[in-house]
């Protein structure tokens, strides 16, 4: 049986109309459901984007390795030996490992006295190699810079500050170009970290620490061993291979089993961000299901009104059948009608949601961390498509069952009693 959309459409235009108040209530229910769905999804999307950004705050596709202790005997050597990479191992790793975006060493003093004017604070001070700026997302505010080759080569006494620390020490003054004392040795401030969202951290957040070239650190504090080794992969997919090779290179040098995780404990941010992406997807699905259920309640409203329509029009349907209407010409216009209510409500809900989201976007978060992390609700194409698909599906379902009942109307039965 061929369906003729044009006939269906003409019949739809010519069927009797539902009471206005009832139609308005139904459309409003759908609009409310769509509004909830779109807003929830938009909040989920905003949260996801903000968290993804925050996660990238520490750097993208990096892994952090700490000094550890062997737990497995290896080639005649007992377990329980410390493994403490040295500064020269950074070079070794960089020259041996493939798919490396960069490797850097860190040496940290957790309580270095830093003095400016009359104020002295104990600061987490880290000596870092050059790729730190790039790998750990240390961008300088306007007017400043990160370290360069000369700073490192000549062991210059230059220092780069987190923004909270800078404010703590300098107040409203511009720190760049000023000199401060680190353990009574003068250092020139070359840059201040631009403010960023940061979710992951080891040691502490970047906003209140200070970094100096690792060569300078070694000279002043006489340290040789690294506090951390940080490696970056040139793509998240390469991280497992990079880490395996790093372990193999260092295992050969320090004599431990490359499979011995505890010899060189590792934080792979690629792995943890994959976990978080899945969690976020889960959150979005959850929000989507809640929104979908709200919309589903609206769909029940549509089904309800369509059942009432079929009941009210039983005679009209019987007459049409007597005049030779086929089932599809009875069901088609009804389905179109149900879809019309649904899509009208959906469009209305979408318009309201867009307006609300624009309004929320205009509101300041006022430095409130919770609000900052909740982010801003964001509409995206997938959200629009998902909403449209859910609306269409609900509209079809809500209209299909009443329409099927209409098609089963027995014309002889409805016309019998005059």
């Amino acid at each position: 049986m061929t369906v003729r959309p044009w006939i269906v459409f003409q019949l739809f235009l010519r069927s009797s109309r539902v009471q206005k108040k009832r139609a308005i209530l139904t459309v409003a229910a759908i609009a409310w459901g769509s509004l909830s769905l779109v807003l929830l999804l938009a909040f989920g999307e905003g949260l996801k984007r903000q968290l993804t950004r925050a996660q990238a705050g520490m750097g993208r596709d990096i892994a952090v390795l700490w000094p550890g202790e062997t737990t497995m005997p290896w080639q005649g050597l007992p377990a329980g030996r410390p493994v403490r990479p040295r500064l020269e191992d950074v070079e070794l790793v960089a020259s041996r490992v493939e798919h490396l975006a960069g490797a850097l060493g860190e040496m940290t003093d957790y309580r270095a006295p830093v003095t400016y004017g009359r104020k002295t604070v104990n600061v987490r001070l880290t000596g870092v190699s050059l790729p730190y700026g790039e790998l750990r997302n240390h961008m300088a505010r306007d007017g400043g810079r990160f370290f360069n080759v000369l700073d490192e080569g000549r062991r210059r006494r230059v220092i780069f500050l987190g923004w909270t620390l800078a404010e703590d020490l300098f107040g409203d003054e511009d720190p760049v170009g000023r000199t401060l004392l680190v353990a009574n040795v003068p250092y020139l401030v070359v840059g201040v970290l631009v403010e960023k969202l940061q979710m992951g951290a080891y040691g502490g957040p970047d906003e209140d620490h200070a970094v100096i070239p690792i060569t300078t650190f070694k000279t002043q504090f006489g340290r040789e061993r690294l506090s951390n080794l940080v490696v970056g992969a040139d793509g998240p997919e390469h991280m497992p291979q990079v880490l395996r090779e790093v372990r193999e290179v260092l295992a050969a040098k320090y004599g431990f089993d490359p499979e011995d995780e505890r010899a060189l404990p590792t934080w792979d941010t690629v792995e943890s961000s994959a976990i978080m992406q899945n969690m976020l997807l889960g959150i979005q699905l959850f929000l989507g299901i809640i929104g979908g259920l709200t919309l589903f309640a609206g769909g029940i409203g549509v089904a309800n009104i369509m059942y009432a329509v079929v009941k009210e029009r039983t005679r009209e349907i019987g007459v049409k059948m007597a005049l030779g209407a086929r089932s599809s010409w009875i069901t088609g216009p009804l389905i179109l009608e149900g879809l019309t209510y649904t899509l009208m409500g959906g469009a209305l809900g979408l318009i309201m949601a867009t307006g609300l989201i624009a309004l929320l976007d205009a509101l300041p978060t006022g430095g409130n961390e919770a609000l900052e992390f909740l982010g801003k609700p964001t509409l995206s194409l997938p959200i629009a498509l998902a909403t449209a698909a859910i609306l269409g599906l609900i509209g079809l379902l809500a209209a299909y069952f009443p329409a099927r009942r209409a098609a089963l109307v027995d014309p002889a039965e409805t016309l019998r009693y005059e």
Partner: protein
Amino acid sequence: MNEPRHGGAEPDVAASPLIRMRDIRKVYDTGKIQVEALRDVALDVASGEFLAVVGPSGSGKSTLMNLIGCLDTPTAGSYELRGESVAGMNRAQLAEIRNRRIGFVFQSFNLIPQISTYENVEMPLLFGRVARRRRRERVEEVLARVGLADRMEHKPTELSGGQMQRAAIARALAMRPDILLADEPTGNLDSTSGGDIMDLFAQLWEQGHTMIVITHDTALSRRTSRRIELHDGRITSDLRNGA
């Protein structure tokens, strides 16, 4: 080239009746009880007849009407409409038959109130997939025949009872059906309007239409060419009026 042309002029078609019913039985099964609405009904109706079906209520008139109109199928027996067996048809085929061969006129008109008279009359043509221009011609033609040419754009609610029944008759005629089937067509009308409708029926019959009318109205049944009476689901008399 030499294929026989189908139509009323063909001798074999003219010889066989338009309606041929044999051993018709209709049982309504309401679950607990079975009601035998028609039993052993045999009926032939020739083309061009004007048949009145009379009988007390509950005698099976409406059931017979539904069977003839292909709104329902018999429990047992054979029904041929223009030599075509209706008994085994599915819903879609029955819809097609109703659309092309039967024109219904109801006691309560059953026009759709929200659309114009024109659109009401156009409805069966839409179901019959008649082209747009042809639809317009047909609707105008039949509305003129029932005297409603100037009421096309009116909604049914803006018409009088007699006019509504005329519109319904126009709708029944639109597809040029073989049979016009009317159930108490004057039942809801005052005597003047009823008289007008009877005149219109007589006129249509004279124009060659085959008509079957269920009626209590003796004034109407007297003007038909043939009158059958039902009692308890059986045809108890079958008279040809001497007109």
